[in-house]
Structure formats: C-alpha cells, structure tokens
C-alpha cells in the first residue's frame, strides 16, 4: 500500500539532465535498469540508500526527487 504513496520525478529529471538514459542512471546508482524502470513506474520504493544515491546523481535534495503523500498515509491518519 505504501508504495502508492511515494511518487518521484525521476523521468522528468532524467529528461532535464541531457536526456539521461535509464541504463546510465542505473549504472551510476549501482542497480539494474529494470529497477529504475520499476521505480519510475511506482512499482518499487527504493531503500533510503538508493534514494539518496539517485538524488545525488541529479544533485538535488531527496525531497525534490521523491515525495510522500502524507495526507493519505493510513498509519498517520489513524493517529490524528
């Protein structure tokens, strides 16, 4: 469920970084291209380590690459 709450701008950021390919980003972050595809499509939430590595490649803070839909988090909603 949580994976739907995390979104990212990787596709847009790749485009803005001289149209970086998925393979290039995968090589620079030490994962396979399939993992980058899965992250872009919202099918996989990366570990913090990988998320930081991706943000580092784009030279941006983490929250500009990934965002979390706090309002729809069921755990946080329950505690309100």
């Amino acid at each position, binding site marked *: 469920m949580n*994976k739907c709450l995390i979104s990212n701008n990787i596709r847009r950021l790749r485009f803005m970084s001289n149209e970086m390919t998925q393979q290039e980003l995968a090589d620079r972050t*030490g*994962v*396979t*291209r*399939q*993992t980058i*595809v*899965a992250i872009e*499509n*919202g*099918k*996989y*939430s*990366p*570990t913090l*380590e*990988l998320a930081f590595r991706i943000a580092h490649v784009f030279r941006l803070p983490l929250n500009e690459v990934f965002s979390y839909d706090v309002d729809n988090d069921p755990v946080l909603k329950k505690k309100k």
Partner: protein
Amino acid sequence: MDQKERQIVVTLICSVITIGLYVLYVYQKQVAGNSAILDDFRFWGKSFLWLIPVAIVAQIVIHIIYAIINRIITNEDIPIVDDERDRIIELKSIRVSHWIFTSGFICAMGVLAFGAKPSAMFLILFSSGFGASIISELIKLYYYRRGV
C-alpha cells in the same frame, strides 16, 4: 516482459522439464515392474542425490543457451549482479517456499506417524520440494510484474 521475468520463465520451464524427464527416467529404469523398490531407502537416497547434480547441470546449460539466444535476438546482456530489488523479491519468494516445504515435511512425518509406507513419505517430501521451487519462481514472477 523484462530480462528478469524472462529468466524466471526459463527457469520454470527448465525445472518442469528436468524434473519431469528425471522422474520418467527413474520410473522406467527402476520402478516399472518392480514397485517394491519404492520402499527401499537406498533407491530414494540415490534418486535424491542424483537429482541434485542433474538439476544443476540442466539449469546451467539451459541458461547458457538462453543467454546466447537472448544476446542474438535482443543484443542485450543479461544482468549478472542482483540489486536490492532482486534481493527483496528473492527473500519474499524464499519465505513462501520455506513454508511450503516445511508443510510438506510435516505432512511427510505425519503420514509416517500414521503408519504409511516410507514411499509415501518420500513422495510427499519430493512433491513439496518440487512444489516449493515452482511456487517460489511464480512468486518472483508475480512480484516482478506487480511490483514490490
């Protein structure tokens, strides 16, 4: 279907064919017309021990053939290194296959406890091991397609 998914399908097909042919071979060579051998512990020991190298060699050969065909058709290399997503999916599938095999093991011991022949125990053990490996691959395929 991406590389990993294709590899899983190849592994699945290879497992089914290898085990199927091996069981058929053992049945025709040793069991047909001599069903008493099913209660011989040496027969089961040898069959299980031989199955391990046969399955490993078959998997290696089929994956090499697959890698060559894949390279010719797609001009893409198969990723050798597993990353964090692969490892998470692997862990999830191992967990399920572990439970399936454990259930099979308990059933196998159960039938022994209820006085069934040793062949029943070995058949259940073999089936649960085979089932666990097949379901483990199917679980991987499910997670690769649906997402983790």
